[in-house]
């Protein structure tokens, strides 16, 4: 079974996925951290890896980054096994981690100019500073940047070498809403205008929904669902909720897997408009919480993968607010 590549059409038709992983396993001693992860990420796609702490997101990403050796499975990133990635391969990858506190004494402009020298065809440091909104801070030491500015500098450093694939690890933790909005616009530009493939790990459902073309939900060392945000929300085992006001004025609500049918039946029964009719589609959050709770309740892990073979979203267009 392949995950993901059945559901979306990538913006450009690629010869092969930028990231391709099959049955990746990771074991530390007796502890199984990854139980066979399958992943395909296509050229120019923004792909989000969602999951609670300890789900195996970091391990998965570090295997793809070439920082960790997998116990078993097949991985190819930009056509190369990350365990054998050389400098030429490294130069095609950009990394933005959340824990970097390096080069504190360096000035912002100086640091960016220095890191440009490692690449054959770097971006212009001055243009890059403008792109991430740090032109005014170019002469400032890195240690005197705010948290959001520091992260934007990390992004600039991550893309100075024009990477084809960019890893973003919890990129907007600690951002204020405006900085977050600007950061999202920047990621959009990189992906839409420049065809950079982005792999984003996050806890933030709103961010994943806002940025990602496709989302993989990871729980307990497995990818439990993968698809577009709409598909995932639609596929939720959590059901849609229909609310309306009955003839006697009492508010009514009903959960159903087929809200369209329920609404049609209501209309037939009422033979006219229905007061206060509202259909709430299951959200990405419903799907996510459902999946995490099922894992916490100790449900058979094997049943989780049936999410991936779900029947898609044929009734999507009917399930909107009336």
């Amino acid at each position, binding site marked *: 079974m392949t995950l993901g590549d059945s559901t979306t059409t990538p913006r450009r038709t690629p010869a092969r996925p930028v990231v391709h992983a099959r049955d990746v396993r990771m074991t530390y001693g007796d502890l199984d951290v990854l139980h066979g992860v399958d992943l395909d990420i296509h050229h120019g796609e923004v792909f989000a890896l969602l999951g609670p702490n300890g789900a195996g997101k*970091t*391990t998965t*990403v*570090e295997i793809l*980054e070439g*920082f*960790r050796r997998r116990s078993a499975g097949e991985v190819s990133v930009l056509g190369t096994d990350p365990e054998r990635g050389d*400098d*030429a391969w*490294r*130069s095609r*990858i950009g*990394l933005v*981690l*959340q*824990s*970097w*506190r*390096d*080069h*504190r*004494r*360096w000035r912002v402009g*100086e640091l960016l100019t*220095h*890191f440009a*020298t*490692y*690449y054959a065809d770097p971006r212009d440091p001055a243009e890059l500073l403008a792109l991430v909104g740090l032109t005014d801070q170019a002469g400032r030491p890195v240690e005197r940047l705010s948290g959001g500015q520091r992260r934007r500098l990390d992004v600039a*450093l991550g893309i100075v*070498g024009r990477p084809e694939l960019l890893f973003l*690890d919890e990129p907007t933790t600690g951002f204020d809403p405006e900085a977050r909005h600007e950061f999202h616009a920047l990621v959009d530009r990189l992906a839409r205008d420049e065809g950079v493939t982005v792999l984003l790990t996050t806890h933030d459902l709103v961010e994943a929904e806002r940025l990602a073309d496709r989302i993989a939900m990871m729980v307990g060392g497995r990818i439990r669902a993968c698809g577009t945000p709409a598909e995932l929300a639609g596929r939720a085992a959590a059901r849609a909720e229909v609310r309306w006001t009955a003839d006697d004025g009492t508010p009514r609500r009903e959960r159903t897997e087929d809200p369209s049918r329920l609404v049609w039946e209501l209309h037939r029964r009422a033979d006219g408009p229905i007061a206060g009719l509202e259909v709430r589609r299951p959200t990405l959050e419903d799907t996510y919480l459902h999946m995490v709770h099922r894992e916490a309740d100790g449900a058979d892990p094997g049943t989780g993968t049936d999410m991936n073979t779900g029947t898609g979203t044929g009734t999507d267009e009917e399930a909107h607010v009336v």
Partner: protein
Amino acid sequence: MTETPMRNALRAGFQRGGIELRHLLRNGKEMASHLSNVVVALLVAGFVGDDVPGTRTPMAHLLLAGFAAYLLFQVGMINLPQILVTEREEGTLLRLRATPGGIPAYLVAKCLLVVALAVGTLVLLLAAGALLVDGPLPHGPGDWLTLAWVTTLGLLAVVPLGAAVGAVLPNPREALALIMLPTMGLLFISGTMIPITSMSVPVQQVAAVFPLKWMAQGLRSALLPDTARTAEVAGSWELPMVALVLTAWAVLGFLLAVPLLRRAARRESGSRLSARHEKAARSGAPT
């Protein structure tokens, strides 16, 4: 095909070394701590008035030669490991690992920085010593040559060793404690401050295993008159032995440093970095 990336890494390394050196020179606190070593050496040398027992060489000259050796030793064995551990903890090493040619450039830069720091300190100590406290300087080209090769070989002996130590030490806070004590111990038994002949024979034998004693002896041979040889253990400078021991430490240091540094770089990843930051935050250290 392989030459261009290597040359690029060298170029980046030189640029990096230059920038780091500039940052060091501009950092008041760090400069003060380096300069204070020199000041302490000059003060001590200015206060001792005796001659080295059995010779007509001022004790101050023996002291300054010993301090010169110790400062070289300190740059390699204390400053370098501290820099390496701190930069590993902050993520500098990881960033360079994720950068094409980053690790070779990092090593080139660190070598430049350490050599500049060591040679700068040595020049400052000898020049200030000669000007202010009538300190020793080499007499004639032979002595200058000895000064040059002992300094070079001494750095080759301690810098790779210090890099190996820096690669295995856990974190900056514990690192300092772990290296300071043995270094201080060596400072006192290696004949840098007190003539080594005043130590008991077993202590002399322990000191003779480590490079500091031989660095100090080599520098004395360059800085002190030949008549001061009588205060040495063998009654001579034993320069062949100096060269032999320092070369042996250099070889050992390289053999240890290359795999240990490689291992340290390979182990770096984002989650390790986060884990260390969390641990540091829990123990109340500033991040």
